[in-house]
């Protein structure tokens, strides 16, 4: 038997060197990316997400430029009362009767006529309802002097907080669950037994984390680009100047924050053998992703909470850019936070890889965390 085997051994293709660790990692990453990019559901949902982001920014931009103001009719010298007031576009008419007819026809929202009996010196004529916003505009209010003026206005801060919070929540949960499903798919179909006979478990894990991180970063950078282009197109250069650096920091923090989460998601998913059971082990991670979103929306005006958030690795990707936008940080703070994040990231990869390796080939019942860590 051995003689023919030796005689034909020359025909055999030479034994391959196993692919280097890096090649293996990249092959796995490439497959992860490829299979996602070929999913119609993913392409469509990403397109919709980008479209909503673009529409939101354009809408906000155009609305703020809409400075035509409330149309009002003014009679005679009453025009002096509205002169120089923003948000009002006056139309001069000859007399009260002409003004009233314009109000009735709806061409103007209200008319202003001189009235010495009125404490303001003029009367506002409207159709069926008192024009509240116009009255507030015309009201005489005392000058206010703030000893600690806020650097950014309330509404804008809220919007930016929601923006960072939502993008983090969406990208992290979408790609976190993608990597979890992909790990379980391999377990459930037993492909993993074939893969593990070709490459080490750590290579497989690294490939999956890197592949999904590239996809998640692609989406985040896409949204960042849309935000920057949108703000430029709508001429909000001032806002862009304030947001530019925070957006860049957000991307950097998100990169490492996501690697951290992805390693943990993969490890959690490796502990179960069926898609239906993913929720039972990834639940704590889902909470971790929700937390920064909830906190930044509830506490974006609370400097203490925001400071803590900006240093806790799981919420730093939202907390630090937010504080940067508010201009509350020293130059070294984002760097320190990034170092903390990186250290946590390394620890998470180590723990995640251990759980992943120990759980990957154990089919059936959910693997207990203690067993997964012990091996």
């Amino acid at each position, binding site marked *: 038997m051995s003689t023919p085997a030796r005689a034909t051994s020359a025909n055999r293709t030479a034994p391959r*060197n196993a692919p280097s660790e890096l090649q293996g990692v990249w092959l796995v990453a490439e497959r992860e990316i490829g299979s996602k990019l070929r999913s119609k559901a993913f392409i469509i949902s990403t397109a919709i997400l980008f479209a909503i982001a673009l529409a939101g920014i354009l809408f906000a931009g155009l609305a703020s430029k809409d400075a035509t103001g409330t149309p009002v009719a003014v009679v005679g010298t009453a025009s002096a009362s509205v002169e120089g007031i923003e948000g009002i576009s006056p139309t001069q008419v000859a007399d009260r009767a002409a003004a009233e007819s314009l109000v009735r026809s709806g061409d103007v929202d209200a008319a202003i006529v001189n009235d010495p009996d009125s404490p303001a010196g003029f009367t506002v004529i409207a159709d069926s309802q008192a024009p509240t916003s116009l009255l507030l505009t015309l009201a005489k209010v005392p000058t206010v002097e703030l000893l600690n003026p806020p650097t950014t206005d309330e509404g804008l801060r809220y919007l930016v907080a929601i923006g960072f919070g939502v993008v983090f929540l969406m990208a992290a949960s979408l790609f976190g669950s993608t990597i979890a499903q992909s790990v379980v798919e391999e377990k459930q179909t037993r492909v993993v037994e074939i893969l593990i006979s070709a490459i080490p478990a750590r290579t497989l894990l690294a490939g999956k984390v890197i592949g999904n991180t590239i996809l998640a970063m692609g989406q985040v950078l896409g949204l960042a680009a849309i935000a920057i282009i949108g703000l430029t197109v709508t001429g909000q250069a001032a806002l862009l100047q304030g947001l530019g650096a925070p957006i860049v920091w957000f991307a950097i923090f998100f990169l490492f924050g996501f690697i951290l989460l992805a390693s943990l998601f993969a490890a959690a998913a490796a502990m179960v053998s069926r898609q239906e059971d993913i929720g039972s082990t990834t639940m704590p991670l889902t909470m971790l992703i929700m937390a920064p979103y909830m906190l930044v929306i509830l506490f974006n005006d609370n400097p203490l909470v925001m400071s803590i958030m900006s240093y806790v690795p799981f919420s730093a990707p939202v907390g630090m850019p937010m504080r940067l936008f508010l201009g509350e940080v020293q130059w070294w703070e984002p760097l320190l936070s990034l170092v903390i994040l990186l250290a946590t990231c390394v620890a998470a990869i180590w723990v995640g890889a251990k759980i992943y390796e120990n759980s990957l080939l154990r089919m059936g019942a959910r693997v207990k965390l203690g067993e997964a860590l012990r091996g």
Partner: protein
Amino acid sequence: MLELRGITKSYGGRRVLDDVSFTVAPGRLTGFVGGNGAGKTTTMRIVLGVLSDDGGTVSLDGRPLTSADRRRFGYMPEERGLYPKMKVLEQIVYLARLHGYSKAEAESEATALLEKLGLGERLGDNVETLSLGNQQRAQIAAALVHDPKVLILDEPFSGLDPIAVDVVAGVLQERAARGTAVLFSSHQLDVVERLCDDLVIIAGGTIRASGAREALRAEHSTRRYELISSGDAGWLRGEPGVQIIEFDGGYALFDVDSEATAQRVLRQAVALGDVASFSPQHPTLAQIFKEVIQ
């Protein structure tokens, strides 16, 4: 030479493998047979390192098996597994590349192999759209594409139609002829009998018989002969040392107590009429199997 020595494995106090030892030689097809739950899959998973043993050694060419060695194994798990939503060719190319093939090499190897297995028309189809038989062929390609030194196949023939069985058997024989050590389990004893060079029979977690097929057959053969003659073979009943198993006119199946008795019977038969056939009967694998697992 793949060698298992004294492998034991218990699940929760229940011993499923007990002192399992056998060898799988390069260039030969080794059939691994046993009933349900006998321990075939557990043994194979231990060889592949996807399950750890409680004791014993697995060695390759005299050295303990390392994970680097296992990279040159081809494995077909009992529960089939490929990515359902990946195209057949892409999938096999991917696995070849994980084994270090360049893209071009992987593509040409995978295409040739899939064509040989009769999947040439389905290269661009998703695995989940294939029939179970075709998925099985793709699975075999997954085990073979990197030209493994040792092949471990768990039930490679289950679910295949007779034509597909022949195709797969042909591919496995070709690999063995090139020097691959092939271990495959099967319930289909007729296929195993036809195909394998060596046999390992397991029951209740212990190896009941192992060795070359012909040697096992010789070992388990009783002195049974078949006689087909023109006359009535009824006279055999009176012969000393002869025990009739079946009898019908000129046909008789009988056991003899010695070779000399057989020769005497033959001479007698020729003297009494024309003899169309007088042949020693080898036990079938099914018979050996039933005998050794008792």
